[in-house]
């Protein structure tokens, strides 16, 4: 199976690999997937006082498409408001990375990770969790 150039680029030069301080109130952490399934994503957002995502980091255990999906997600998240971030759909990721059908689950996982990070941030700040965060 050949990877798209965009997947190869994100895999070779991943954007925003790293860790934010999860104990901080303005940091939301989403950890999704399972080692047994072959992919685990951890995506973190830092939200500034204006409610804008000022930083995003990821670490991913998984195939190239999973790494690329999470790398792309962090790129997209930076500078977005929470509401804009919620609107990111896994099919946007599929389209941008030209993921083949067998790799769609990687984009689903990335969307789940975004929603889980937002939920973590919301709960920390006394807001109700999003409904239907999971596919």
């Amino acid at each position: 199976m050949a990877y798209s150039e965009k997947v190869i680029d994100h895999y070779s030069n991943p954007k925003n690999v790293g860790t934010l301080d999860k104990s901080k109130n303005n940091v939301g952490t989403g950890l999704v997937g399972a080692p047994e399934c072959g992919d685990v994503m951890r995506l973190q957002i830092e939200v500034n006082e204006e409610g804008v995502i000022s930083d995003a980091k990821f670490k991913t255990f998984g195939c190239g498409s999973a790494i690329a999906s999470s790398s792309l997600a962090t790129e997209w998240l930076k500078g977005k408001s929470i509401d804009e971030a919620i609107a990111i759909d896994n099919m946007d990721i599929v389209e941008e990375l030209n993921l083949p059908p067998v790799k769609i689950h990687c984009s689903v996982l990335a969307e789940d990770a975004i929603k889980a990070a937002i939920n973590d941030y919301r709960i920390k700040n006394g807001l109700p969790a999003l409904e239907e965060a999971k596919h």
Partner: protein
Amino acid sequence: MELKLPIYLDNNATTPMDPRVLETMLPYFTDNFGNAASRNHPFGWAAEEAVDYAREQVANLIGADPKEIIFTSGATEADNLGIKGIFEMYASKGNHIITCTTEHKAVLDTCKHLEKLGAQVTYLEVLPDGMIDLAALENAITDKTILIAIMYGNNEIGVVQPVKEISAIARKHNVLFFTDGTQAVGKIPVDVIADGIDLMAFTAHKMYGPKGIGALYVRRKNPRVKVTAQMDGGGHERSMRSGTLNVPGIVGFGKAAEICKNEMAAESARLRILRDKLENGLLQLEESYLNGHKENRLPHTTNISFKYVEGEGLLMGFNKNIALSSGSACTSASLEPSYVLKALGLGDDLAHSSLRFGLGRFTTEEQIDYTIKAISDTVNKLREMSPLWEMFKEGIDLNSIEWAHH
């Protein structure tokens, strides 16, 4: 010499053809194109003579009589013919077959097919090092058992089963012993007499011969074994496998077998050194584990899990330059990781993180050095971006986390 990329380290999938084999085959596509069954003219005679000679070469490699070699299209067909053929031929004696969970799909799926036709099949579990438990094997034998089907060397982990002990148990209980010798024949000494093998499947393309030609060894005396043909037609191959003989393929198979016989000792010694260098180099990495028995193993194979990185992601780091296969799900159409590794008791996480290396006749030390470096670099890079590695380093027990299975 400059290192030429890509490097091929997937010789358990298939081997490149030895140029000497190709050279021997070529006249049989053009000048000597005859049908080996044409008994009435020189074209047929030439083909028949070439087949006879190749049959001797193939038989010599495994210590068999040429009459005991049934040419097939490959090892899968030979597995099917051996197992289904015995099930049909010995139906009056019983319907029980014993095999094991790490067999190739050509054996497992054949057994599953026979279950639908009334066979009772015991799938023995293997020990954590991939070896058969001989006591469990003997205990599984009943008065209905007609066949034990245990492979010689495993395709994924290279583990070599104790065939002499298995055949002794089979003999003691008057049960036939079939072995899939695909990965072992041509690589390590296999002798059907000394090993007590009654039937054996093997193929040319794993030993530097052409694809599309394999063989089933069927013992002719002590005991005389017969299989029911699975393909009907002109009665070729002593009526056990009809179909016009693939003369160029057979000629190539013969030549490949002859080269293996002559060069096996030196080649396996050389590959063992290279394999050990590769293995020791990669096992220097923290949290990397060898899969399968360390000693009872094919000399050109190793299988290593790199914990906290995923196999397909790992391959992507170098698969433009190094051809390898992974036990991970994502590389194949199915979503399950390697059933062989799972049969050893590996968790899905380790099974997903494994690489299989198959060295071969044309593998060089420079290639091994390059491979150790490329894989080590990729493992380290991916661990830097692995959340599991970070947790491991922080001392978090990954089993204590409630993972969301999807």
